């Protein structure tokens, strides 16, 4: 009998294995690299990409656009969301705008992006920013509103300086909200940066996928998709590490 922790470690390996097997069988049945390249062909192409400098520069390009958009969105959301959280009237005023922003589909922004920013580096950054900013802002605001008002009153009675109240009470109670929005946000980030590059990028993974599509190199499309999946998993892991570090730091003096 397997122990429960070993069973837990084994479960994802089995499910991913089954997925690969299903993919392999389907590709054998279809037997066309144009319609459905198999896992082996995709792996081949994957290795070719990651052993070329062109491949790495595309990955680096996409990463820098994605993270730049993410950090701008997070920075703005922290400051705007904080004030929305502590001032009720600001919350009531800004929330509808943020909700509208959140409901506008990426394609609408993409259509505008070409005219506003042109084809190149800025457009994908702007798309990532626009998709993440509403999610982060709402969550920071909700997190700050969620603060225990009684703790704030306690801080007032003991005349705790504002900066410390912000860091130790407001930010700490918003922390779980920020973390969960980051988790959702990172998934959205890779999807939106790839779409933006696909449509209006001059370089990067999305653009490489678009080129591969035009030259009917479907293995390449699959291989780049695999790269995006790997990036998504890696950043998720990185976030977990940062959260662990962050909560350990927050618990220290």
């Amino acid at each position, binding site marked *: 009998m397997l122990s429960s922790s070993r069973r837990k470690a084994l479960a994802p390996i089995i499910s991913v294995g089954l997925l690969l097997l299903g993919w392999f069988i389907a590709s054998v049945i279809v037997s066309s690299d144009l319609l459905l390249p198999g896992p082996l062909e995709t792996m081949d192409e994957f290795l070719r990409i990651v052993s070329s400098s062109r491949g790495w520069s595309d990955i680096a390009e996409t990463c820098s656009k994605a993270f730049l958009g993410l950090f701008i969105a997070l920075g703005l959301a922290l400051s705007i969301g904080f004030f929305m959280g502590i001032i009720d009237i600001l919350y009531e005023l800004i929330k509808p705008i943020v909700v509208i922003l959140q409901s506008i589909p990426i394609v609408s922004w993409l259509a505008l992006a070409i005219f506003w920013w042109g084809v190149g580096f800025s457009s994908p950054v702007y798309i990532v920013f626009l998709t993440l900013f509403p999610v982060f802002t709402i969550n920071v605001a909700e997190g700050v509103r969620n603060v225990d008002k*009684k*703790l704030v*009153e*306690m801080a*007032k*009675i*003991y005349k*705790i300086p504002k900066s*410390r109240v912000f860091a*130790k*009470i407001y930010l*700490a109670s918003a922390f779980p909200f920020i973390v969960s929005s980051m988790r959702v946000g990172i998934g959205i980030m890779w999807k939106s940066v790839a779409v933006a590059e696909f449509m209006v990028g001059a370089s990067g993974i999305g653009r490489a996928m678009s080129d591969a599509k035009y030259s009917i190199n479907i293995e390449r499309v699959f291989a780049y998709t695999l790269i995006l999946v790997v990036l998504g998993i890696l950043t998720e892991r990185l976030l977990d590490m940062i959260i662990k570090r962050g909560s350990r730091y*927050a*618990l220290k*003096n």
Partner: protein
Amino acid sequence: MRLRISNLSRAFDGETIVDKFSYSLEGDFFLTILGSSGCGKTTLLRMISGILKPDTGRVELQSKRLGFVFQDDRLIPWLNAFQNISIVSPESNPVEYLSFVGLKGHDSKYPSQLSGGMRRRLNIARALAFNPDLILMDEPFNSLDVVIKDRLIEDIQKIWTGKKISIIMVTHDPAEAARLSTDIILVQDKFSKVDEIKLGDPLRRSPDDMDLITRDLLSRMKKFSSFVH
């Protein structure tokens, strides 16, 4: 310490809770605001602390540093015992105050890891570490078991005698009031009737005196509540 309350009123949603109340007191006092629940005593304490603004009237308080022992403790859940003290008074030595209230060795425990009585002690240690000249206490012995409550009462009396601190305590228990107070404000139903009682030094009070005072306070409280029902 000097406390002067003049013509203080406060209403919530059109209902008057504190009504034109005036009172003044000087010296190293232990003032107890006594009354059954819902009589407005916590509202009065909150106005004395300055956290709640009165509709009319004013509170003059000589105090420069004011500590507060909260009924619901109000400890920061993600900070440990040590940090909960150091956040209000960074220059203090939290360990000293933790051992004073009998929480030696618990400095790295979080509020959720402490029992109700221990949390109350931490709450008191925090108020003491602030180095106050006046401590306000809102039902400090509420929801504690009898033995812990008795020890805490002794501790608080020690704090009051040893440190030249004035204390204002809110309670609904006449026995606590009789044991600790130099002065009592007995509040009946939203300040429609207020008795001001001067008792003098509680350290010179014999257990028999305390019993007598307790019974007297209780009969005053009863008289009024029979009036209501």
